[in-house]
């Protein structure tokens, strides 16, 4: 039997651990600078133009073949509906996009805000999904595969915008439902989503995300009295494909302004990257320690046996 050198063993395992940690650090750094696919598309939503006509909701319902709504799309009483805790309407399995009304006292007229999946550059839903049902396409859409989805609802908790909805109406095979930016029927053919095209006021501008950011800043520059100097979604949670311009501060029209600029992924990836390392190295390492620790005893019992 070849002699087992404890010092060498410890040295080797330490060096391996450091190398693994270093490679994790490097990956984390590279992922931080990911700003989405270079030519991915996006939508710039100008809230100052929205009149709350709900045509986008109607167009979405038709395009996605969603079930009939509870009230017609020209029924404006939905703006007075509230969920538990006085919260405004949210996306559901029947509606991938909703418009809400915000009454701002200092503003003469109400502000309407359309909302749907923001199609993050680095989506939290995708990160959280353990069956890999989610995909971020190069066109910018965040897609999910209903065939793979097991209905665990982790993405609903992970999403910083509370977008994914659940098909509670289907007890046998409930799955996640959300806006897919009309990827199947429009986006992959270079066409704008149905809501964008249907909007009478052209509240939404469809184009390359990088162009929309420039356009948004130009708009702010030319009409500083009409806009807050910020494009919501340019940097929030690492950037989103859907971005917003507003005249009133964003927090007053239902936007969470405390999300930070880090993608949700970056809060968990250091830990998640360690998991496979721990699973591979620790068993070997501790088996080694165990063998070393019990080596003397094993030899003793062997000697005793041979003496006998």
């Amino acid at each position: 039997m070849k002699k087992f050198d404890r010092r060498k063993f410890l040295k080797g395992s330490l060096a391996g651990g450091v190398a693994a940690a270093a490679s994790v650090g490097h990956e984390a750094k590279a992922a931080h600078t990911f700003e989405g696919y270079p030519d991915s598309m996006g939508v710039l939503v100008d809230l100052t133009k929205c009149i709350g006509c709900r045509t986008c909701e109607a167009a979405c319902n038709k395009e996605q073949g969603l079930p009939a709504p509870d009230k017609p799309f020209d029924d404006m009483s939905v703006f007075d509906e509230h969920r538990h805790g006085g919260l405004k309407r949210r996306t559901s399995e029947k509606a991938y996009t909703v418009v809400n009304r915000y009454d701002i006292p200092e503003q003469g007229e109400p502000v309407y805000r359309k909302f749907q999946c923001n199609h993050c550059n680095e989506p939290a839903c995708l990160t959280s999904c353990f069956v890999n049902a989610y995909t971020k396409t190069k066109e910018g859409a965040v897609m999910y595969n209903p065939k793979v989805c097991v209905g665990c609802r982790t993405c609903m908790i992970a999403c910083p915008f509370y977008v994914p909805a659940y098909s509670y109406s289907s007890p046998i095979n409930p799955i996640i439902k959300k806006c897919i930016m009309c990827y199947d029927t429009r986006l992959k053919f270079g066409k704008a989503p149905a809501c964008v095209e249907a909007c009478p006021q052209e509240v939404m501008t469809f184009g390359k995300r990088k162009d929309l950011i420039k356009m948004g800043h130009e708009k702010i520059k030319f009409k500083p009295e009409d806009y807050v100097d910020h494009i919501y979604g340019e940097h929030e949670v690492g950037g989103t494909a859907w971005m917003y311009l507003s005249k009133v501060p964003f927090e007053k029209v239902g936007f969470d302004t405390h999300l930070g600029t880090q993608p949700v992924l970056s809060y968990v990836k250091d830990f998640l990257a360690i998991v496979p390392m721990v699973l591979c190295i620790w068993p070997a390492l501790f088996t080694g320690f165990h063998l070393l620790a019990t080596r003397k005893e094993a030899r003793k019992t062997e000697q005793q046996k041979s003496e006998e």
Partner: protein
Amino acid sequence: MPKKLKKICGAAVFLLIASLPLQQCFAQGPDTVVLETLAQYYDPVEFDHVMHVDMLGEDSCATCHHHSVGTPLVDENCKRCHEYGGETESANCEDCHPAQRFSADYLAEIEADIHLYHEDKPGLKGAFHQKCLGCHKEMDAPVGCQDCHTRTDAGDKLFRSGKYAPEPSESTAHAH
């Protein structure tokens, strides 16, 4: 060659006379304009042009026509380049504002034109509604969708309204 000169003079006079009523007509604009390019979910709009001109005054064409009819400009931003531009070839909305604003072809076109300033020019539908509704809000004119255009059957179907309205139910879609 007096004969040829005569011919040219004749043609010039003819052209001058022929263009007179046209010019006058152009200065006034048409009485009504039927906006039908985009009609699908709503019937075409019969826009009472002369009524709007009367209301705003003859010199206010640029309120809607930006810089295309040769009258004094209204928007300070337009003046930066178009102050002395004069009349343009066409004053029709749809000759500048594309009906298919977000088609792949149009997006490629604006991307290829590196000298294009008006990259964010609204499409035809956006231009109509932003212009009309912007003024209508300010002047307390009607702002409801069906105040200006009646919805078609296809429109009722899209909005799930009228005969396509859903059965009233107790539960709401947003309970969760």
